[in-house]
């Protein structure tokens, strides 16, 4: 007989038994050992039929191909830029992947991107040893204009964006801020100073309470209270 030991949305800790028996399938930060399934991270249990998934509640960003990330230029190389992704691994943006125009070898690269600049980029390749390549060619990629940079847990990014971008749309319409969210948990936000702070605090709240239910409604109330205007957007009611 297979038996499940946790409920949907339970907070689980490393080594916690989630199920006993072969009828269930581990997913995310869950693993099988003999007949039993355990969690290998602090996380939120999500039970969908026979699949027990653990969504991590903490952890560093580990780069993955095709992720859209925000990083900071930390060094200039012979043929490109070194970019800090606030991850254990730096990435490299090669000149041929940076701009549509041709840049001669040996040209002064600081004309294009300087140390200290922030940019949005897409990860094009990650090797087994975690060498990471970026591109800034594409829609909405490239150097970011001045704005406030903040960092949240990469695992909370889906909550900040919301279903089909609903949460992000709500924050943007309430604050009038421009916001870009990188999958590495780095967020760029720019707007009128007070509104920018409201946007920052709203995102912080989502980061801290991502595991709770009724979050969208609470965020909506918070934004309406702070701005004194009614919001039309219907968020997801997870």
């Amino acid at each position: 007989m297979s038996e499940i030991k946790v409920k949907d949305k339970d907070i689980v800790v490393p080594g916690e038994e989630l199920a006993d028996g072969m009828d269930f399938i581990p997913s995310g930060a869950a693993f099988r050992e003999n007949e039993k399934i355990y969690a290998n991270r602090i996380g939120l249990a999500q039970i969908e039929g026979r699949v027990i998934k653990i969504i991590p509640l903490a952890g560093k960003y580990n780069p993955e191909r095709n992720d859209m990330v925000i990083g900071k230029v930390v060094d200039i190389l012979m043929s490109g830029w070194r970019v800090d992704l606030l991850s254990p691994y730096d990435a490299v943006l090669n000149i041929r992947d940076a701009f549509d125009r041709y840049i001669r070898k040996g040209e002064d690269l600081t004309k294009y991107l300087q140390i200290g600049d922030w940019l949005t980029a897409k990860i094009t390749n990650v090797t087994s040893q975690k060498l990471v390549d970026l591109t800034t060619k594409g829609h909405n990629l490239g150097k970011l204009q001045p704005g406030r940079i903040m960092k949240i847990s990469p695992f909370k990014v889906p909550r900040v964006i919301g279903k089909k971008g609903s949460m992000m749309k709500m924050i943007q319409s309430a604050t009038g801020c421009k916001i870009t969210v990188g999958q590495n948990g780095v967020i760029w936000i720019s707007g009128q100073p007070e509104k920018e702070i409201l946007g920052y605090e709203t995102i912080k709240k989502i980061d801290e309470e991502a595991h709770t239910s009724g979050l969208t409604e609470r965020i909506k109330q918070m934004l309406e209270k702070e701005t004194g205007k009614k919001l039309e957007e219907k968020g997801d009611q997870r």
Partner: protein
Amino acid sequence: MSYDKRLDGRDFDELREMDASVGVIPRADGSAFFRMGGTSAYAAVYGPRQTHPRFLQDPAKGVLRCHYAMMPFSGAGDRVRPGPSRRAKEISMVTTNALLPVIDLHAFPNAIVDVFISLPQTDAGSRCAGICAAALALADAGVPMNDMIGAVAVGRVDDKIVMDLCYDEEAYKDGPVADIPVAMNHRTKGITLLQMDGEISKDMLMKALEKVKKAMDKIHEKQVNALKDKFKEAKAEEKPEKK
């Protein structure tokens, strides 16, 4: 002679009062505070992050490195000179080894996870409190780990097996004493740290190790509650706002 009553009045199997909390050091990637009686430990995790110096890198998996340090005023006697002593270095190594069996850093080649342990006050059992705090901090940091680790010192004072010795028991003069720090993983009670000084028979040692298992469950319960409490608080907060 017989050791009939413990110096601090506890039962022979009784642990000292414990306190545990996580997320206490916001700058760290994960952190914890763990107190066992008069011994308190902070632990902070930084990483996985880039490895310095580079020669420590392991291309197959991430490296775990623990550092144990007593604050200069945390000793029972004279001021402890800051900086790593031989004792602190050895404890750092056995702490790393005590935690390593449950840590899985295969997803983080060439990276390092640093765990820093710092004790503001000690009353025996400092490496054990440090390990309990470190395991919590690693869990709080979201480092992949297949189990939790707990640690406690068991021992003998004269003719009795005693759990979680305090300083006065370690210094007991009227009979033989043994002090045995032990760390175990929760699920299978595998021993990941075992040291001893003093004198003890094989029989008594085996009995002592058996007793540790029960004590470990109590420590584990405290650790689990600390981890889950961090997320409960946010939930409790939301209620007044809700209709």
